[in-house]
């Protein structure tokens, strides 16, 4: 960890570093419930993640969650993809959110965090979110020939085709 990042152990330091390094990429930053939440433009994801891992020391990607904003007002895209990073030891938490439109793609986190592999596959399988640069983006839960993305809000709970 370089010296400048070592000084900024607090979350405010991280936000500052991010806005400093990636002006224009950071759309919003807020502290909610003792955790820093940052909204990013999706194009900058790969480099931001690289910075956070290598220089700010966020060594764990805890989760990738996708939310379907169908019907909700505002936002840059139908889906919000949330990356939850954590730094151990010290347990500092960071929430990165990026919006992506239907059919558009996000840069993949796999080159930075290996554990993003299957989480991204799950996001693709369940929502149809595409990831650029993912080594093997295919369905993980549903059968390979399944049509549709089940966790989307417009996909019925009982499934299509009579739930067969």
């Amino acid at each position, binding site marked *: 960890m370089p010296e400048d990042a070592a000084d900024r152990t607090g979350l405010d330091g991280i936000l500052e570093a991010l806005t400093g390094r990636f002006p224009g990429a950071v759309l919003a930053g807020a502290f*909610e*419930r003792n*955790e820093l939440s940052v909204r990013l433009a999706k194009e900058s994801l790969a480099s931001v993640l690289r910075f956070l891992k290598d220089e700010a020391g966020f*060594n*764990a*990607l*805890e*989760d990738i*969650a*996708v*939310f*379907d904003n169908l019907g909700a007002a505002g936002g840059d895209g139908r889906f919000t993809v*949330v990356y*939850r990073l954590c730094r*151990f*030891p010290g*347990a500092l*938490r960071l*929430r990165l959110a990026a919006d992506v439109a239907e059919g558009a793609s996000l840069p993949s986190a796999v080159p930075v*965090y*290996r*554990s993003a*592999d*299957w*989480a991204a596959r799950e996001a693709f399988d*369940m929502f149809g979110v595409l990831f650029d640069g993912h080594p093997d983006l295919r*369905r*993980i*839960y*549903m*059968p390979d020939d399944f049509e549709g993305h*089940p*966790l989307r809000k417009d*996909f019925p*709970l009982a499934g299509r085709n009579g739930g067969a």
Partner: protein
Amino acid sequence: MELREYDLNMGPQHPSTHGVLRLKLAVDNEVVLGVEPVLGYLHRGMEKLWESLTYHQVVPLTDRLDYLASLSNNLGYCLTVEKLAGIEVPGRARYIRVVLAELQRLASHLAWVGFMANDIGAMSVLLYAFEAREDVLDIFEEYCGARLTLHGIRIGGAVRDLDAPLVARIRAVLGKVPDRLDDVRALLDENRIWKERTVGVGRLSGADAVAHGLTGPALRASGVPWDMRKDIPYSSYDDFDFEVPLGANGDVYDRYLVRLGEIGQSIRIVRQALDGLPDGEFAAKVPRVLKIAPGEAFHTIEAPKGVLGFTVRSNGTDKPERVKMRSPSFINLQALDAMCRGYMFSDVIGILGSLDIVLGEIDK
């Protein structure tokens, strides 16, 4: 005759893979070149289902995720909802939750050691471990009426109070488990065959483990001291004095030792919790129809399998907008390929077993 590599398929029906998991192995004679897990055989659409249920109704379904440690799933979910809704859980309830969660960890690890030993061929250990587990399940049955899928932890606290007779029974069981564990240890710890099959097998260095996103006992066996109960304590875990067993080599043997060590520590925690059980309510008053203002919360716990996380997003109604579960076994299983490469085919079973995965959690 030339030797060539071929693909071997294990599962989804197989006496060994713990659940319906399919493994595609590329094997060169006996040496494994790569492992690709194929998932989805137990996918039940949990996350979709949860969006159509109220916050309370989701709790029993979380049992069915890691069905060998259902209380942990309950706890993870309830803590997240409480964080989102701003519900304050009373002190007694927090201690009861700790008791339940640690007893659950005991049951989960005992089941694990039994299955692991059985896979390697030591059949009797399975039954010894399960005999100890039976005592713990009997306590659960007395507490909430079920043995496996418990939902004994509800939003706001626990389902019932721990009265004096039950506390006495728990103490009695805590006295018996170490004896059974000693039997297991006597059969395995210094057993030459066990050690040949587990020492040096499935090695993963600490750095690799972290890079793969591993959590839980498998990570701690590689020497990385991350434990949510210590790092981000929840439900009053910081009140208790316990150690986190660590391994040195990150092989199957170390994972075995770490989990057995955790059993001992769980017993210690439960004793402290029972000794210091504060007075008060066993649950906060939570309305039947629980409406939560729009927001999002993420919370993690140290489940027996690793770090279990829930993200809950609310939309003002009594049903969640989205619940995303961060499954420890799902992330851990990704490391299987790296762990198995270069080892023998027979080792795959042992390495898979040492990861301690549950398909309910992986497939949701």
